[in-house]
């Protein structure tokens, strides 16, 4: 068993806008690209050109169909990675202390040197956000690009997670959700951001902004005709041209 920090004042995390996510997988691939040659072991791919290609990804996009009571079915694209929970069950279940949550910023990390690949944390995570790397035998997960966000070797504006830096639609936001005055906290407040599966009582730091209401343009008032007769139209046209 591994202890969680009592409190984290700073709660770094992601805010993901489901109203604008077009499901393009840019975040998925750029995350893989950054993380495979940075923190810890590479994110490997087995049978990469074969019949059953399987690799490690720290972030994946799922697509769901939602059929509302009224109106046509909708498609929702749902990116998912570690939510850096305040009550992270993946940490408390870890038998070696490899999984830990940082008190200084709330990031949940795996110390790969201490990970024995038992997989308990993946079992404990209700979100399926951890993946055991098949070749390295260690647990991989979103680090919130801890090696980017404080990295003095890259320009300051780039010190955000790779998925945020690359998202073409601007659907991913990064910041301190422990600070109610931060941009991300204000965005969550303005858009009614929600926790994923709050009933699991994991208190995720990451938040999702729900899709706005759709397909409301059904009973709007039709345009009033100037006239139902072609001649009437021409009379209107003449008057309107005169007024120019």
């Amino acid at each position, binding site marked *: 068993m591994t202890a969680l920090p009592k409190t984290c004042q700073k709660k770094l995390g992601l805010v993901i806008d489901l109203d604008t996510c077009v499901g*393009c997988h840019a975040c998925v691939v*750029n995350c893989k690209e950054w993380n495979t*040659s940075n923190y810890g072991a590479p994110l490997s791919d087995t049978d990469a050109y074969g019949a059953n290609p399987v690799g490690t990804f720290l972030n994946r996009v799922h697509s769901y169909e939602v059929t509302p009571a009224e109106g046509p079915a909708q*498609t929702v694209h749902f990116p998912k990675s570690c939510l850096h929970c305040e009550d992270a069950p993946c940490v408390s279940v870890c038998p070696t202390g490899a999984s830990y949550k940082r008190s200084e910023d709330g990031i949940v990390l795996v*110390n790969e040197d201490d990970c024995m690949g038992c997989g308990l944390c993946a079992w404990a995570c209700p979100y399926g956000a951890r993946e055991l790397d098949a070749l390295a035998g260690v647990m991989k997960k979103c680090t919130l690009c801890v090696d980017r966000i404080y990295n003095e*070797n890259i320009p300051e504006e780039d010190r955000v997670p790779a998925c945020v*830096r690359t998202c073409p639609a601007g659907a991913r936001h990064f910041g301190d959700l422990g600070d109610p005055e931060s941009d991300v906290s204000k965005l969550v407040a303005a858009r009614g951001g929600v926790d994923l599966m709050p009933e699991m009582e994991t208190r995720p730091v990451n938040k999702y902004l729900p899709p706005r209401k759709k397909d409301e343009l059904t009973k709007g008032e039709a345009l009033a005709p100037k006239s139902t007769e072609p001649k009437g139209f021409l009379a209107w046209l003449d008057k309107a041209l005169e007024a120019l």
Partner: protein
Amino acid sequence: MGTETRIAARPSPKVSDEVRQTTCYMCACRCGINVHLQNGKVKYIEGNRDHPVNKGVLCAKGSAGIMQHYSPARLKAPMKRVGPRGSGQFEEISWEEAYEIAVSWLKPIRETDPKRLAFFTGRDQSQSFTSFWAQAYGTPNYAAHGGFCSVNMAAAGIYTMGGAFWEFGQPDWDRAKLVMIFGVAEDHDSNPIKAGIGRLKARGGKVIGVNPIRSGYNAVADEWIGITPGTDGLFILSIIHELLRAGRIDLDYLCRYTNAGFLVRVDDPKAEDHGLFLRNDAGVAQVIDRATGKIANYDAPDVKPDLAGHFVQDGKGYKPAFQLLAETYLSPDHAPDAVADRCGIAPDRIRAVAAELARVAFEEEIVLDQPWTDWKGERHKKMIGRPVSFHAMRGISAHSNGFQTCRALHILQILLGSVEVPGGFRFKPPYPKPPEAHPKPNAVGRPGQPLPGPHLGFPMGPEDLQICKDGKPLRIDKAFTWENPFSVHGLMHMVISNAHAGDPYKIDTLFMYMANMAWNSTMNTSEVMMMLTDKDENGDYVIPRILYSDAYSSEMVAFADLILPDTTYLERHDCISLLDRPICEAEAAADAIRWPVVEPDRNVKGFQSALIDLGARLGLPGFVNEDGSRKYADYADYITNHERRPGVGPLAGWRGEDGASEGRGAANPEQLDRYIENGGFWMAHIPEEAQYYKPWNQAYQYWAVRIGLFDKPLPYVFNLYLEPMRKLQRAAEGHGDCQPPDRLRERIKSTCTPLPVWYEPFEEAAVDKAEYPVHALTQRPMHMYHSWGSQNAWLRQITNVNRLYIPGAIWEAEGFEEGDWAEVSSVHGKIRVPVARMDALNPDTVWTWNAIGKRRGAWALDERAPEAEKGFLLNHLIHELLPPKGDGLRWANSDPITGQAAWFDLRVKIRRAPPGGPSQPSHPAQASPVGRGPRDIRFGEDFE
């Protein structure tokens, strides 16, 4: 436990040794990228924040560039075929031997009958160069892939308003309040649309998505119109009906900037000039001046044209074009109630969309405090914006009624006054440019001589068609003939089929670049593979020689006799040029380069450099000096030193001997270095006063001349009424010397209308709709670019199987269950494929992702790859010809005006099939000329 080995709280690892900035080529979007190198190897690719296209972001394809660069499917050396065609058996040869073979084929053809070479390039980003080569060679048979892509969109845009969507125009993303998108393939263009939608939504703007399938952009659209395929034109004309009825159109805009007031002869349908404009002796179109009631030149200062009325001169009667337009679309045939069932959209929804477009356009008007001067010298204090913008692509384009549908959409934009105004649709340099300012097509070749002008152009009437005196087509693809008179991008999808049929003539050598025409880029895939391998009675191949260039082991490679291996996009020079398809934004002219950020580790060359070598060996004009010596060392040399017009070359930046000139100037030997220093691109901002109203804005016109886009100001008005179409109709009615064949007269009369018309797509009209009740479509996933994605170890994990998505009602009626397979038939063929249910879909439509299915043995994949076992191509059901009509003639499955491939006219029937794969048809494996990829990848471990 374990805390002592944890990483530093604030780690700052070194990212790379060096960053080199170039242009992405993971799709056609052409974003700027920062390529991080460590120990000389590519380590990480991210978007370039300073780049005008992507402004720092990068999509999934771009982020997977490393896996493309290191793909095991990369070709390694020139190869000549040693087994039968299609087998994939090759032997590696030297470049010298490859050139010798190619010259031994190409030189005799050029000296005797240059049209026997057909040179077609695929997703080529160097068309101004490849066309220059083909023109110097002298064959009329050249085009790129536009004919099977979105030529309807491009041609309708340029003919109607002197510019088109995507490369030559874009929504005013920062000012629009409502953006309506129709059938957008999700990569035209890729990142700017995603970014634009994100910014629009952040401001509270709305998106209306019109698409039978609710995925991608339509998934985030605030309003989804799940239209029935092929009916977009009906829907748009019904919106126009509503706007006209309510008088919600921008009359001032129509008077000033369109041909709405042009007088059209209407009194005598038998007259030679019926339906043509009244012109004065100098050829200037005439309008009725409202102030005087008399006719006047349309472009005279202070003339305000009347848009209705009747005018008689010399006993002939005329009406303004706008009145004809209003009479046409006010007809009850276009009322929402009359079209709703065919479109699959409730009449109230059509009315509501029309009302919302009108509300935002006219009630949320934008006024910019920016004075400007128009083409007639009138000073305007402000710029008035109608913040409604549109974007459309292949979904409305790839139908046999696509040209007219695209025209209808542009008419809608123009009626709303929302083109080239704040918040509307904006052109990108080198556009706006009217059709008259484009070249005319050329197809008369002579032995040993260059073609007299460019292959592709914009015909303005029957006199510009490219047909022999006996009526036979001059081009192998029959472009610019009465079958498809305005086929401004050619018809690449007809080349192999026509060459095999010897219709209109036989060829000797088929030369292709980067076009997977033996697989996903062709219609009728199985039969096309047969055509490529078919032999005549003497045992010779019907298409005698095939020369092909590709960077990767695509399906097409196996069908070539000689392979010229291309490089990856990180190993090559390229220019993304103002001479063809630049990277401009609405605010700025811009072009870009690629350069070898790493050198190839194989015996490969950039295709364009190989073509320069071939050009020199063939002694082509423009490729050799006067003494016959070679003119350019390689493509980089050409990019730097070639001049298309004096002082205007492939790249506009840093011209002049001192590098200080923009647009015009002498060649600068250090030009490429300046591009590299600037991140791989050049950009020149359009002055503020010239940002909008570009076709009529003096400041823009002067700026465009200064920068070298054209040589004198080119103001023009938009073509609501497209007179060149009427000229085609007049010929079909029997007027003039250039006459269509009788079999085409009725079709030309009914489809080549000067005002947009909707007609039922040809295949739909030809098949029994009760037997084939369902529409079938494909879409491209956002994370794949045609067939390239499957060789990419990361991207193929996202999608390596495509299922046919079936709407709920059909799914239940046929008793489908999860994991099922189906037999899908069209009038042309049958396939067996895996299926899945989808309800966010038009109820009469099925669809799948395109280009996921792979032939066994291609792309260095395992023969048991899911792409071959469970992936499939819908292409097998789509024929390049319409079902036979019993007249013995071959009728192309194409738009009758532009020749655009009508991919989306497909009708099918679906039956549940016994469970289990593989997908059918199941072709045997090709031998892989590059072996197989490694089993496992640990990318990144080298960089520790």
